[in-house]
């Protein structure tokens, strides 16, 4: 046997240990054929090195796995913190950050960013009428549609509820407005919810950033422009102007003053005649609310109804209108025939109000007015939101004997065949379809075909916005039986209308 202290294997063993200590865990030393104790130590160190190498590799593998899991968790956290959970769009925090970045680039010479702020016009009706599940599906689809119209460099965000925003860095005014119009068009298309289609629509405020502006200010101004779009009848795009701040403050003021307007008797009803075209006979009147404001004078519905709808005053205001109109009809008992109707507009939120049918029934009884003398006008978009509760309420009112009329038909996206499924008696054609008669022969033929289709459904047609004798004659020739507009008379206070009704004999309506 070799003497241990002369054994060169010991030197080789020391080299092996040095290699292993330096981190080379794959180093090995072959034992000699002697298979003595030195070889046993060599074998043992080889085996220990193999175990250590394996443990080290396992550890490395686990560290890599844990690091990847931590990275994924960090990315998930960032996504949760910066993205909207429902739609996956950027949230307000991420949007503000990106606006900040775009403004910083503008400081270095790039064109300032533009922010589009979008709010769905009918979302509350969809959410309240069809439930949150339906509302969520609409929001997800809105996110898809908005993402489909923007550039790769733009950011689409959901700010909360039914409010969305688009950040367009380095854009021109023309480019931003083109995207705004495309977004508007996309959101005006129907949303399919199973076998039902609903319409959401949107109002869009646009604000072009300026150097030195903050993200908060840019968003605030876009919001102000969006409210201006709402105030202009919804479904449109408005570019921010400084004077809009004044209008926004005014809206707040109006909302606050509306609360006392009813109680202090500041509201008025004006009545516009609805005429049988063939005879010129006034067969009904439409009640139109006005606000005799103590400082600002007589205000038209466009000045306060949108605010009333947003602020929740609309139900109280609507009750006053119904009571006053029905009371006035009762006062005209000696002046008009028994078939004479008063038309009253109902906002979608009023239609959904649970006690509406009972309130109307009680009011009619109080004034001894037959239900068939009241006609309720509901806007096309109001009905098209697919609100089941609203449709049920209208059905109940029809069973009571009250007439139900679809208002402004032709401004939304409803098909004529869809009219068959609605609980209505009358279709009021929007004035925008009538106003083009003089210049557009095709339009005249189109409206004529529409009259015939509506007639084939057993529904009556009233044309709105008749301004000239020519229009009246064209309508008559096309088969329309009833008309309304300044040609037949402006809306006027009850006293004036009483004189008009008393001055001419009123034949009974033939329908």
């Amino acid at each position, binding site marked *: 046997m070799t003497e241990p202290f002369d054994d060169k294997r010991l030197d080789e063993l020391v080299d092996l240990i040095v290699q292993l200590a330096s981190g080379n865990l794959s180093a090995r030393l072959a*034992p000699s054929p002697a*298979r*003595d*104790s030195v*070889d*046993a*130590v060599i*074998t*043992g160190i080889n*085996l220990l090195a*193999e*175990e250590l190498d*394996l443990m080290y590799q396992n550890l490395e593998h686990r560290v890599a796995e844990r690091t990847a899991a931590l990275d994924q968790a960090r990315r998930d956290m960032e996504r949760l913190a910066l993205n909207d959970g429902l739609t996956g769009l950027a949230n307000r925090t991420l949007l503000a950050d990106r606006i900040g970045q775009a403004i910083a680039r503008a400081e270095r010479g790039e064109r300032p960013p533009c922010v589009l702020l979008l709010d769905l016009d009918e979302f509350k009706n969809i959410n309240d009428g069809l439930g949150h599940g339906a509302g969520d599906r609409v929001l997800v689809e809105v996110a898809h549609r908005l993402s489909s119209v923007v550039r790769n460099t733009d950011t689409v965000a959901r700010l909360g509820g039914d409010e969305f925003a688009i950040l367009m860095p380095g854009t021109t005014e023309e480019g931003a407005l083109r995207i705004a119009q495309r977004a508007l068009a996309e959101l005006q298309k129907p949303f399919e919810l199973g076998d039902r289609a609903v319409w959401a629509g949107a109002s869009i405020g646009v604000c072009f950033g300026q150097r030195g502006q903050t993200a908060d200010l840019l968003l605030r101004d876009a919001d102000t422009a969006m409210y201006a779009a709402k105030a202009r009848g919804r479904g449109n795009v408005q570019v921010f102007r400084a004077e809009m701040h004044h209008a926004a403050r005014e809206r707040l003021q109006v909302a606050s003053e509306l609360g006392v307007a009813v109680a202090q008797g500041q509201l008025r009803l004006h009545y516009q005649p609805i005429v049988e075209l063939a005879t010129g006979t006034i067969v009904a009147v439409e009640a139109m609310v006005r606000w005799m404001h103590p400082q600002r004078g007589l205000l038209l519905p466009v000045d306060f109804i949108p605010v009333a709808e947003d602020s929740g005053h609309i139900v109280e205001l609507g009750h006053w209108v119904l009571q006053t109109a029905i009371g006035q009809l009762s006062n005209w008992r000696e002046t008009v025939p028994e078939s004479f109707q008063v038309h009253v507009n109902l906002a979608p939120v009023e239609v959904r109000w649970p006690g509406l049918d009972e309130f109307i029934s009680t009011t009619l009884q109080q004034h001894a007015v037959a239900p068939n003398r009241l006609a309720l006008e509901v806007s096309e978009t109001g009905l098209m939101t697919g609100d089941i509760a609203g449709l049920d309420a209208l059905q109940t009112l029809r069973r009571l004997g009250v007439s139900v009329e679809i208002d402004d038909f032709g401004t939304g996206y409803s098909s004529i065949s869809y009219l068959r499924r609605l609980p209505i008696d009358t279709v009021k054609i929007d004035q925008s379809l009538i106003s083009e008669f003089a210049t557009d022969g095709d339009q005249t033929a189109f409206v004529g075909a529409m009259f015939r289709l509506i007639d084939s459904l057993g529904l009556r047609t009233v044309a709105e916005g008749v301004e000239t004798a020519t229009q009246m004659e064209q309508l008559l020739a096309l088969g329309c039986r009833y008309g309304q507009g300044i040609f037949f008379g402006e809306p006027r206070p009850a006293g004036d209308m009483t004189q008009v009704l008393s001055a001419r004999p009123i034949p009974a309506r033939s329908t």
Partner: protein
Amino acid sequence: MSIPPAESRYESLTVDDEGFVQLRWPAGAKITGPSAKDAFDEVNRICAGTRRPMLVDMATTKSVAREARSVFGEPCAASRIALLGRSPVDRVIANFTLGVSQVPCPTRFFTDRDKALAFLREGPHDGTV
């Protein structure tokens, strides 16, 4: 399973007069995972459902791969195992095998054949000659 190369295949596998399985590895054998599996499959086959003590002659075995040591930790037809070697190297290899795997039956290393057989006789076995 593919047949292991000759340098790593067991040399002989028999059942002796006492009913003990005798497994012998050739001098300089490099026992790999497949060769260990091949040997243990054969042990199970010849035991044919009975459990027998087993003497494993691993003297002058050159190396036992980690995968092979794992195979030795799997349950098999052996009721007791005596690992027989001669050198300190055999002892280190054998004890690494015992230490790395949790052996499924009483297993010990011996350098003396008689002591190894005596250890095997200590335990019950249901094998017959």
